[in-house]
């Protein structure tokens, strides 16, 4: 009787041991997808916040850090907060509602929202103008209707891109090609487009030309679509005539652009002439 009771208890204990031996911890996730970064300037009691928006997380983080350590920014703001987001809709919110103080945007978007007149967004630094191309790997693309009809074409999926979306579609419209008859593959970035072309998944892509492309594609097999597409620009919201901040931001952006690996980002042009007694918009930038 004693043995039977003991054996029964032993079985119960065994079961409990089995239950206990399995490691069971609750999963706790932090914020998994960050969309912003914040840092304090030296003026900790100042509640004003400088808000930055770009599409790139890396640039947003770098710029936020740089601006936090800037003396001029510290005089005016207590903290700097950088947002990033891949959705075009998000950048519309930041521009259209005037939330961002400093934003990297294309001039077609600024124009669409009339942001220069509503919130007085002023271009600070602009990347160089560029040319949009049709790029092929096997032959030089011809801009004719017949040529495109049996080709697989790679375009960018964000409708604000001029070289990768707007201009090629404009060409198709001019050639009177129904988009439904084209085999279009969408990619989310210029690099992805290049991968599609290199892997032979598409015949033609629409993008800009950069020097490093010569390693993968031939410069002979590109056809320009349009010249002088104005590059992306950094815009600063100028509600006051805050020229100190303008010059500080310009200086930081110029310094940062020099660090970028991408050749395209190195060709930045400042729009303002700082360092003189009066800060003026430069002549060559004015004619845009």
């Amino acid at each position: 009787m004693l043995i039977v009771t003991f054996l029964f208890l032993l079985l119960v204990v065994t079961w409990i041991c089995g239950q206990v031996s399995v490691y069971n911890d609750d999963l706790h996730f932090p914020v998994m997808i960050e969309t912003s970064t914040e840092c304090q300037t030296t003026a900790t009691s100042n509640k004003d916040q400088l808000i930055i928006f770009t599409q790139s997380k890396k640039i947003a983080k770098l710029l936020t850090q740089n601006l936090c350590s800037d003396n001029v920014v510290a005089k005016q703001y207590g903290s700097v907060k950088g947002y990033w987001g891949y959705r075009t809709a998000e950048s519309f919110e930041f521009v259209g509602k005037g939330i961002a103080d400093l934003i990297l945007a294309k001039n077609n978007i600024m124009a669409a929202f009339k942001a220069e007149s509503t919130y007085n967004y002023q271009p600070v630094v602009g990347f160089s103008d560029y040319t949009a191309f049709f790029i092929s790997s096997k032959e030089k693309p011809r801009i004719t209707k017949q040529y495109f009809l049996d080709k697989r074409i790679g375009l960018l999926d964000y409708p604000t891109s001029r070289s990768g979306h707007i201009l090629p579609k404009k060409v198709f419209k001019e050639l009177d090609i129904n988009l439904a008859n084209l085999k279009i593959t969408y990619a989310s970035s210029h690099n992805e487009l290049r991968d599609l072309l290199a892997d032979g998944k598409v015949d033609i892509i629409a993008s800009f030309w950069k020097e490093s492309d010569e390693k993968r594609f031939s410069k002979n097999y590109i056809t320009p679509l349009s010249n002088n597409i104005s590059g992306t620009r950094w815009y600063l919201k100028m509600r006051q005539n805050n020229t100190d901040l303008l010059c500080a931001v310009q200086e930081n952006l110029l310094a940062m652009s020099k660090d970028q690996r991408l050749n395209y980002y190195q060709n930045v042009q400042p729009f303002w002439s700082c360092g003189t007694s009066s800060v003026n918009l430069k002549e060559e930038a004015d004619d845009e």
Partner: protein
Amino acid sequence: MNKYKQSLVLLCLYLILSSVFYISVTQKSQQVVKQKIIQIEKQIALDLPLLDLSNELLKHSGNKDAVNSYIKTLNSYIDSDDLRVVTIVPKSEMVTPIKPNQIIRSLSTNSGFVLVVFSVKRTHFTLSQIIYYLIFFVLSVLVSFWIKFAFIKQSNKQLINTEHQTITEPTPLVLIVDLNDKTLSSSCNPEQKMCLANKPLCFYLALVEYCTNNDDVALSHNKDVPEELLELANKYFYRLIELGHTVRKRPNFNNSLEKTLSEIRAALDEVLNECPEEKELYYPPKAYGEGSRSRLHSYGLANIRKGNIEIIGK
């Protein structure tokens, strides 16, 4: 309980304990995996609006690198080899069939279903579990020894009980008297037979029967043999005549009583030689010492009972 049996008990015990442990571990780990999958699903559902998944309607191709790095981060927080998130894809893009160790969960969003594929790996033996198995083995060994000792103890007890029973109930010794060949023998040693003359045989049988019927009678040498006893003796003598052992007329049992008893005693001495402790029951008491033939002495078999003597050919 020999070694073979003990190792069998040990093996059975160990197998039972191990399988109970194994089932328990399996059940619990399945439960844990289920619970974790729910937690992960919840987190993915929360992050879904920020995940750059492709969207057919909006012709959005999505950013696979971003999704993959999200999955990588997620797996680093799950921090377990048993459970991993493999892919997060919209249903329209799901192409590869899932493997047998994968679980597919579907999140229903306003822009269609998003499928989350988990890979579940069962680790059967972790270090702690192996330690548990060892503990169970040691326990089984101990318990099997315990059972062994308990078994031995019990069997000893039973043995003692049976021995006790054999001691308390020995097969009673029976004196066998065969009228056919006028012999005495005992059930203790049936081979040892002792012939007895007609007169002492008849008298002894009559004495036994008389004493069985009359417990507390005192038979004295000084008095005549009781009538009843004589009648019984005559009866046995007639039976002997019937059996053809004698043609002589019946003897006078009153005469030379002492001689008759002596002959009886001598025969009993021989027969009950090997069981001296039983002798007393069958032995007509002797008178010892001076003045022994007193009135008090009785040659009756005081303790004899029916069944002590078996008479063949009665």
